[in-house]
């Protein structure tokens, strides 16, 4: 048995052995098989295909030149300045949407946690409700609300708060609002799931020892909610950086990375560039999430993997 194992290539063995170590018996691995097959078919295999395409040569009339090997796609990504802007835009959108979403979600989750009876149900339901509507419709619904002749401007003009209409959408403000609206329910639920297991007695203990309401929130609630905040941050960030619907439906000149990829794939037929672009973006995302995890982990948000 050890013979077969040591004959595995080193990287595979490195992954395989702890797995064996953990499961102790092959039966446990068998139980994991459906999950492994699922992951392989739906995630690993498509990603390998994408990786392979990114390493092909471009072809004038085709999507890519099948069977060829080339780094042209990556060279294009790193040298063509036009491709840099969408990355910067997407990361800015990701940071802004995440920061606002997590703050709102934290207070919202706290409100649900503290509410009782019918109010609690109503607050929880109001979080879940948007999830029951299709993303395109609920995002597009912000256009009549935020456009220059939309409802919000009507209100602002009537109240004499502005002298002429402001174009929230189509525009970056609209994109931001739309994106926050998309990810907020997930962020609220992630934080609430952690808060709901927390003992209110800890907050009482903090108040009893002289912590004011805001202070006890910062000192006790936030550190306790940190695992949920971390999950909410990662979900919001990953989704917002890869956002497609909100910039597409509510943006004007909002060229997000995902839209650029779509154009390269469908209009320009530059598949090797689009895929290389995606791979680079994936690496950047992984690096950012790793940094986020480490930074937030400092504040007590230890995520249990086991």
């Amino acid at each position, binding site marked *: 048995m050890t013979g077969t194992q040591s004959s595995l290539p080193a990287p595979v063995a490195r992954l395989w052995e702890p797995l064996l170590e953990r499961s102790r018996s092959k039966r446990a691995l068998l139980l994991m098989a459906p999950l492994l097959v699922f992951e392989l078919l739906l995630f690993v295999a498509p990603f390998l295909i994408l990786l392979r395409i990114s390493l092909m040569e471009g072809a004038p009339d085709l999507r890519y030149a099948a069977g060829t090997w080339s780094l042209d796609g990556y060279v294009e990504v790193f040298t063509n300045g036009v491709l840099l802007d969408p990355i910067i835009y997407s990361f800015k959108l990701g940071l802004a949407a995440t920061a606002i979403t997590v703050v709102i979600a934290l207070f919202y989750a706290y409100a649900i946690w503290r509410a009782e009876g019918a109010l609690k149900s109503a607050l929880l339901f109001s979080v879940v409700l948007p999830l029951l509507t299709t993303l395109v419709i609920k995002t597009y619904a912000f256009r009549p609300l935020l456009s220059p002749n939309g409802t919000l401007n009507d209100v602002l003009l009537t109240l004499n708060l502005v002298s002429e209409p402001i174009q929230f959408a189509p525009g970056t403000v609209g994109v931001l609002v739309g994106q926050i609206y998309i990810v907020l329910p997930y962020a609220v639920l992630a934080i609430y799931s952690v808060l709901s297991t927390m003992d209110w007695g800890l907050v009482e203990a903090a108040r009893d020892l002289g912590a004011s309401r805001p202070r006890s929130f910062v*000192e006790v609630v936030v*550190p306790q909610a940190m695992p949920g905040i971390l999950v909410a941050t990662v979900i919001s960030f990953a989704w917002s950086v890869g956002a497609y619907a909100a910039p597409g439906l509510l943006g004007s000149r909002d060229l997000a990375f995902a839209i650029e990829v779509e154009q390269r794939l469908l209009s320009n037929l530059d598949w090797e560039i689009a895929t290389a672009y995606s791979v680079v973006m994936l690496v950047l995302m992984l690096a950012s999430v790793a940094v986020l995890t480490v930074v937030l982990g400092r504040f007590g948000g230890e995520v249990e993997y086991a």
Partner: protein
Amino acid sequence: MSEITLSGLEKRYGDELAVEDVSVTIDDGELLCLLGPSGSGKSTTLRMLAGLETPTDGDIRIGDEDVTDRPAYERTTATVFQDWALFPNKTVLENVAFGLKMQGVGKEDRHDRAREMLERVRMAEYADDDPMNLSGGQKQRVALARSLAVNPDVLLLDEPLSNLDKRLSEDMQIELREIHAELEETFVHVTHDQDEAFTLADRIGIMADGTLVQVGEPNEVYQNPKNRFIEGFLGDTNFVEGTVERTTPDTVRVETELGRTVGLPTAAADATALEAGDAVTLSLRPEVLSVEPVSAASDDAESSGAVRADGSTTNAVVGTIENVLYRGSTVRYSVVVNGTTVFVERTVGDGSAFDAGDEIRIDWDGADLLAFRDDGSRVDL
């Protein structure tokens, strides 16, 4: 200075009255135990003192200040909670230093003071540990240190020992007494455990159904319970039902379910005002009952209510032992007397032991009994 006055304190949750008209003055430096069964309102009263609950009526004064509407963080009280409520994301030291941090004490100063407190409760070596890894007794000590670190005017203890095992809890009771003696601060301690209350308290306040029934020194509430509930709650006793047969100027004669008429020597107007036919309940504490084998009993001439040579009255009854319960240093016998079961206790090694089925004679001095009216109030004998 930090005398506490509660007057007409009331807490209502919707239609439910959790605490009703509680008024008491707690002296500076006193250790008051609020004792009562669960649901009696003792914890709610304590939480109102801490500022964690707002009274629906009445007020609370600490020293000269009315603190009724003051939030917990602006009160000079500190609470030790039943489940200790240690902050899981902070070390033991940070937990103890928390209150001082809230007061704006610099990091070094507050850590020095926290270390001092941890030493006092003999937990100094755990300063950098995660409180979640400590045992119950250790968490309890840390919680105590954390509350003491802010140097509160009043320390409130909400059943802090109820999650500990008996031995540990008893050790902590002694330690709490020592700390109380040393600090000379006012302590209010809530418990449902009579032994704990008797060990700790300068005075005991007994609560039932949201009201404060009686407040007094431990031996006073034990010897002079105000009503039947307190008599039953403070220790084990036999309640025997009966009806008044007749009242003379110096005795109330009660016909009991034991099949004997029991004489209660009295001169009090309260007792002689009882009328024939009034229902009364007598309390026969095991410590006032003496037991002897029937064979050794003197002749039947010494009948119920007879006056002995020393002037006390005797009320002996005979019964059959139903079962025997060994309780370590004492043995408890359940005895059936005229169809009613009463229990008596003997210290192990105190005379001959009895077995189930034996006939024994139970005797007492009528002056040692307490009597209660139908509504639970005590008859003044």
